[in-house]
Structure formats: C-alpha cells, structure tokens
C-alpha cells in the first residue's frame, strides 16, 4: 500500500551553470536564470504493508518529523543557491531538487519495513517531476 504526505515550502533560486556565460544561461534557462522563488509542493510516497498491531504502514507523525528535519528546516524560506548545499554548485532545477530530497529522505527508510517509493515535487501547479531513486544522471 502506498501512503503519501504533502508539504509546502517556499524558496528562492536561480538556474545558472557556472561554466556558461550569463548570456548563454539566459538563453538556455530563460526567466529562470534570474533570481526568483516558488511555493514548492512536495508529495512523499511510502510503500509498505500495514502493521497488524497498529494498522499503519508508517507513523505519519514520524514522517512529518522527518520531512520537517530533512526538507522544511534546511529549505523553507531559504535561497537554495546560497544556503542549501549542494546547490552552490549543482543547478537547482526542479529535477535536481527532487533528487536531493530523495537523497536526504532515503536513509530514514532504509531498514526495510517501509520503502521510499516516490518523490513528487511541484515547482508550479503546471510543472512537476516524479523521482523514484533510479539512476538518472
């Protein structure tokens, strides 16, 4: 069974590859090359079997705490490029932010009882990515 918890965080970023000139970055990333922000919506889906005693796949309070610690505290109301490694040298596209969130969350679900199944990250209501931990780079 899958269970999903959603959180929202707000952060600023700009998309720029340090090896390209400013003009080249503007040409490739368009308006995203300029510093701006989003209300990101994160949906984290876990895959597991309900525990016979508790009836729960995972304690949602605990999941809330993990998301608070790994995502909200480091990223909410932050400048991703300036304050949240590795985005000082990795371009904070929605794709790369989803991969980074997966890396931060995965160790909390490595004991086998429940599996991190999917990270869905909306940059706007019209653009999102789904990432399931597959090699993607």
């Amino acid at each position, binding site marked *: 069974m899958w269970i999903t918890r959603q959180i929202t965080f707000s952060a600023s970023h700009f998309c720029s590859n340090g090896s390209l000139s400013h003009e080249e970055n503007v040409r*490739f990333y368009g308006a995203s090359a300029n510093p701006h922000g989003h209300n990101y919506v994160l949906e984290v889906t876990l895959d597991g079997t309900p525990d016979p005693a508790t009836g729960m796949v995972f304690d949602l309070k605990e999941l809330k705490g993990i998301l608070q610690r790994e995502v909200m505290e480091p990223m909410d109301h932050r400048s991703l490029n300036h304050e949240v490694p590795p985005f000082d040298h990795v371009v904070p*596209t*929605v794709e790369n932010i989803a*991969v980074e969130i997966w890396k931060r969350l995965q160790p909390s679900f490595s004991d086998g009882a429940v599996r991190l199944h999917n990270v869905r990250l909306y940059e706007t209501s*019209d653009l999102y*990515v*789904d*990432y399931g931990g597959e090699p993607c*780079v």
Partner: protein
Amino acid sequence: MRLTRRYRFSASHRLDSPRFTPEENRRLYGKCNNPYGHGHNYTLDVSVRGTVDFSTGRLIDVAALDRLVRSSVLARLDHKNFNIDLPEFASAVPGIVPTTENIAAVIRDFLQQNWRSVFPNVTPILDRIRIEETNHNFFELHTL
C-alpha cells in the same frame, strides 16, 4: 525520472456515432448527444521520461516542449469544434467519435509525429498523456 507539464485548451464536441440510430445515440451518449454540441475547458498533462543532463540539471528543454505542444496540439485543438475542425473526427466514414479517450489518442499521435524532430536523442521520450474533461473525470494514456 518523469517530468509533467500542464496545458489547457477549450473546445466543443458532440458525441454521435453513425454506427447507431438516433435513438441509440441519445440513449448511449445522453446530454453529450445534444445536436448543437457543447464544450469543455480541458486540462492536458504531458509526461516525459528521461535522464537528467548533469551540466544543465534538466531532463528536457521545457521551452522546447512548450513550443512542440503549442504548435502540434494546442494550435489544432484550442477553441475548435472537434467534429468539424479536426479531420480525424470530421470524416463521415467510419466516423471516429471525439470522446476524450479518442482525443487522447489523437494528441499522442500529433506529439509522436513531431517528437523526433524536436527531441532526436534516446531521451526524453513521451511517457503518458492525461486529460481532464471536467474536474470530475480524467483519462490517462500510457504511451510506452
């Protein structure tokens, strides 16, 4: 990784099949068989699958996807009457009914016809199409 981009278009249609009698069409399609047609604000989600380019951090050039969807899909569907304006539905024989299921297949074909000219590499590939006809129903077509 899969990336999904949302688009919107408005169009009218009428569900009426030449395979059935007028009475059968009324019974089968109900209000959707009304003679003068009706319209919807459709929501179209286009999902692509691919790998992330390390230097750009992107799995697809979203602006190029927008241009492809605008030119090959939205330009043909938005503010159109499917039964009259789209050859796929306008031909009298055999008469493909512009249900949202069939519209999804037409959109898939429009995108795949032009995909390789815009995205010539192994990835990104078209993964799925999802259309909301109204807030109460939606249709998904997996293209892989």
